[in-house]
């Protein structure tokens, strides 16, 4: 009996110590806004600085750094400077998991920002959720990310599946006689590319546009010639290509040119939005008429966006056309988190999550941001852009401010 009592006291003491330690830990992680604490706010992120997504990862890094630079120039957040802790995940979904675990449990960052691509955002969001961190991201807009229904995930970008909506709506608006009769839908097996192509195909088939080719090919194919030749052999009026990068769309364009096939309409889900890298790969003449959906472009007529573009050019050189949407998406992540922190006057991740789920409309360089229950930005604006005589111009929605006339049929290859 005596030994039991001693054991009970020992356990009570142990529990008290553990509770105390937990409280101290909780206070140090979630209440870092103590006014006495003037150490920098550390924001952790994992980016694909090497690997398949390195071009996008590097652009994201610049976007985050540009935002941090701007915030610090204004005095920081809650009176504290912002410091970014960026780890390289080498475009690996496994490494991204390790990186966020490291950022949260070892480096004890105050906040986390998302990585690039849905493939990496999905596992990363799970890690952040496990530790109660808000996970605001700018490049994880596919169903792969939202299917888990994690309460901590917020994507500032346009939901992937809605990206081609302006294109679909434009097709709907055309008289039947002006719509293309046939269409091909080759797509990379990727959570970014295939959902939007599948939605487009289903809708356009209901409009009577006949599908002559619809195949999904592996994401990492070094040689696209056989697939592109098959599309060309069907001679569709329109090609909707589910691409994730410049080489995919460039390879299809080269193959079409070699097959003397020029579709009247050619839209790719990614690639033509990469500015100079795209034009360099395909040639200025061949770029003419190519279309791509996106939620932002360097000429976006919004004061904060134009300011960001100018700052980017000043800091990194080049021209406005070199600023791709990745930069704006990353910058927007910072803006959204900053507004939540400022509103809450706290770095508490749980308060950030609650605030972002409150239905509030926030502002970003990409336009308004409001999250639904899944964390999708329901106010994101969708556009379609087209290369016209060396200029990357907004063409859809046709009634949107700044939209120019769409060039159809696509000019012949001349690169």
């Amino acid at each position, binding site marked *: 009996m005596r030994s039991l009592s001693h054991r009970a006291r020992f356990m009570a003491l142990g529990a008290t110590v553990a509770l105390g330690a937990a409280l101290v830990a909780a206070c140090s992680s979630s209440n870092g806004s103590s006014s006495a604490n003037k150490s920098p706010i550390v924001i952790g992120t994992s980016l694909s600085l090497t690997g398949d997504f390195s071009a996008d990862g590097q652009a994201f890094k610049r976007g985050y750094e540009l935002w941090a630079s701007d915030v610090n120039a204004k005095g920081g957040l809650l009176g504290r400077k912002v410091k970014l802790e960026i780890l390289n995940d080498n475009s690996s979904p496994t490494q991204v998991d390790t990186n966020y675990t490291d950022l949260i449990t070892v480096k004890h960052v105050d906040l986390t920002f998302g990585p690039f691509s849905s493939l990496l955002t999905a596992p990363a969001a799970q890690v952040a959720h496990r530790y109660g961190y808000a996970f605001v991201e700018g490049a994880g807009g596919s169903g792969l990310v939202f299917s888990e229904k994690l309460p901590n995930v917020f994507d500032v970008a346009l939901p992937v599946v809605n990206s081609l909506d302006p294109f679909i709506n434009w097709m709907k608006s055309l008289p039947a006689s002006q719509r293309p009769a046939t269409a091909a839908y080759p797509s990379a097996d990727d959570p970014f590319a295939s959902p939007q192509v599948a939605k487009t195909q289903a809708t356009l088939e209901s409009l009577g546009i006949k599908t002559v080719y619809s*195949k*999904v*090919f*592996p994401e990492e194919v070094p040689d696209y010639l*056989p697939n592109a030749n098959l599309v060309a*052999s069907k001679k569709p009026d329109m090609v909707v290509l589910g691409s994730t990068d*410049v080489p995919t769309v460039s390879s299809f364009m*080269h193959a079409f*040119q070699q097959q003397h096939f020029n579709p009247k309409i050619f839209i790719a889900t990614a690639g033509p939005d990469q500015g100079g890298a795209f034009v*360099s790969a395909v040639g200025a003449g061949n770029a003419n008429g190519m279309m791509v959906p996106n939620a932002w472009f360097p000429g976006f007529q919004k004061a904060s966006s134009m300011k960001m573009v100018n700052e980017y050019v000043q800091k990194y050189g080049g021209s406005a056309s070199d600023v791709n949407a990745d930069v704006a998406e990353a910058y927007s992540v910072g803006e959204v988190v900053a507004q939540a922190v400022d509103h809450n006057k706290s770095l508490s991740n749980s308060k950030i999550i609650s605030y972002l789920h409150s239905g509030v409309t926030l502002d970003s360089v990409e336009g308004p941001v409001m999250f639904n229950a899944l964390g999708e930005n329901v106010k994101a604006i969708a556009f379609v852009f087209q290369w016209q005589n060396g200029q990357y111009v907004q063409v859809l929605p046709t009634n949107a401010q700044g939209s120019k006339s769409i060039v159809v049929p696509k000019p012949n290859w001349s690169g």
Partner: protein
Amino acid sequence: MANQIAQAIAAGILGGGVYALMAAGLTLIFGVLDIINVAQGIFVVLGAYLSYVLSVHLHIDLFVGLLITVPAMFIIGIVIYWLFIRPLRGAERTSMTLLACFAVALIIEGILYREFGSNYVSLKAWYTTSSVHLFGFYLPVIYLLGFGLAVVAIGLIYLMLYRTKFGRAVRATMQNQTAARLVGIDVNRVAALTFGVGTAVTAIGGMVFGAISGGFTPNSGYDLISRLLAIVILAGMGSIGGALAAAVFMTTAEAVVDIWQPTWSVAVFYLAMVIILTVRPQGIFGRAGVRAQ
């Protein structure tokens, strides 16, 4: 449908030539040195970047540029051998060379990232987007040239191996290094030159890869290495001609499967490879046969 199959076979055969160019150096180096050169993918990319520099900055045609990039890659290969491979000795040599090659790949990738960044670049010339009408098909000129180069390069390697004194030394080294030393062959010199030749051939494969890929970055080599290894394993490691045959088989099988189900195209090739290796574990041409030729 018959037309599509014929076109897929044509595309597969031509694409096979490009892969053979990239795999020839890998199989040559393995045949002589017993080294599985996992840096072969980055060598291909390095060759592509060298062609890019000559093309964009010095306006030298991609094929003319090979007169510079091939010797340059030969020297790079010899330097890499002397710095990283030659010092490795002992029972763990094979596994250590694997790690050394991986380290070489990471170093080259890092240098390329530093010099060229992560944006895609591509090789362009009039023949990269043009085609000729042959046998009822439009055949891409760059693929035809690439296939021709593959046949010529493999033919030259074959002549070097079987019609020159150096080739006899190489084959003797392939068969038995100790015996080769006993008959006065400088095995280290042969090994270094073979590594150089294997790397030099990759300059050609790199140029053609850069011209057909639609864009490449320093990271592009990783997508290649598994396919190149599969080709040389199927061919029989060390078989130069076998690399061409296996590459053509791989790309043709994939192109034909693409007609029905592209997502299965890669899997079908690897499935075929497993079945063939079950019957012939030494590969189609077989390592022993290669060395005894």
